[in-house]
């Protein structure tokens, strides 16, 4: 399936954004917006109203958890997938309780990330 909605990709590390962006392109995504910290992410979110947000947890200036809170205040129906390094159970649980839809460990092989994103998109964006 192809995903053609707007995607916001937030991570402070350029190599991660590059890697994840390639995966998103494989999914068919064309409208990918990027931000390197939580504050910029909220700004881009307000401007672009993306349907899907991939959100890193540990970031300078403003972390992913606080950013998630702010995004959820702006929109309850956009899909948020957290990007974690080690899946710290507490962080994951906190994010899910704050309304994140899923999480992905960034050290997962690309095909698994691809499969996981496909599944999330299928679950969240199928209207029938």
């Amino acid at each position, binding site marked *: 399936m192809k995903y053609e909605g707007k995607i916001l990709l937030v991570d402070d590390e350029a*190599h991660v954004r590059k*890697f994840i962006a390639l995966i998103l392109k494989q999914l068919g995504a064309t409208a990918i917006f990027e931000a390197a910290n939580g504050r910029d992410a909220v700004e881009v979110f307000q401007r672009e109203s993306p349907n899907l947000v991939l959100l890193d947890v540990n970031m300078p200036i403003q972390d992913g958890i606080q950013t998630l809170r702010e995004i959820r205040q702006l929109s309850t129906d956009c899909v948020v997938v957290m990007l974690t390094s080690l899946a710290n159970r507490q962080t994951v649980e906190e994010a899910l309780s704050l309304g994140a839809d899923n999480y992905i460990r960034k050290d997962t092989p690309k095909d698994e990330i691809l499969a996981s994103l496909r599944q999330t998109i299928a679950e969240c964006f199928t209207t029938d």
Partner: protein
Amino acid sequence: MQLTASTLQVSQGTPPATRTAMEQRNAAKLKGRKILIVDDDRINIRILSSILQNEGFVITEADSGENALAQYAAIKPDLVLMDVMLPGVDGFAVCRELRERHGDNAAPVIFITAKTESDDIVEGLAAGGVDYLPKPFRRKESLARIRTHLQNRILSEQQKALVEQLKAANQAKNKLLGMAAHDLRNPLASIRGLAEFLCDGTVGQLTPDQLDLANTIFETSQSMLTLLNELLDVATIEAGELKLHKEPQNLSDLLEKAVYLNNINAARKNTKIVYSPPEEAPIVRVDQAKIKQVIDNLLSNAVKYSPPGSTVNVRISGYHPAYTVAVQDQGPGIPENERHQLFKDFMTLSSKPTGGEKATGLGLAICRKIVEAHRGAITATNLPQGGCEFSVMLPA
């Protein structure tokens, strides 16, 4: 005029020349050590005090058992000289009480006995005394015994301090290892992922030479990532931070998934992993991710060490309250003389992977730690028909 140790020794009629340099150094090191003398006989105390004070020891006296306990608490002596016959509580009881209160940290107790009282000597040693001084005191012998025990005490204190230092250093090492591994993982995962994109042609077709280079980058970063993850596991486990989140799991489902995923890799070597599920669902309370890690490790090992084209058999046996996962490979088995190091950190055996795979020597050590944290057991047995069976027993 202040008396120095050497003038004292001369005045005591001990020519310095009879002492070796080492003895002198040791005597100097022991100066200022605190000795508690417990005796109700004033003359005994005076004789011992004068001998010991001349050697630079600091003396405290007590004339009863009760008094001895109070003085011990007040001055924390390095050694106690204890008469057996005391008014009230006797010397043995005081000695036992000191060991009771202070355990292994109690100062060594040397009993003062008359030469003939051999029963006293035995009981004194049984009460926790380290030695005895026969009366009448002979200066040289008494000093030699006292010095020996003081030195032992210093050595044991130094050893304890050293052990503490080493513990702290090991903790610091684990922390550093953890931090380094953690910080290196993300960039490495990106390198691996980006190399994979180069390899699969997503960003344009590569020439065969370029593809070879990109593949090398992919495989190298892949094996570095495995090593880093294992180092991280070791650091976490050693720091006592292996936290298990146990939930009831269907062990058979876990195995089925793991077998499916590992068969993808195994297919590259034309090896098959065959799993025959049990009739009843084996439910165990385990940390799913950790046990998956153990199973993955056993499966990938079985593939790794079996010749290409092998069959790896996996099954679950047992019933509530303990189930056993058994993985049988067709590899060379475990050499008998290497068996003891199979589950230890950084131990790789003489048998090598059959398809050029890497071995870090940490995988099985981590498995053992995870399984033991679940109160289970992991064992390896060579099979009569060849190959080896690894089995993991997990309590329900």
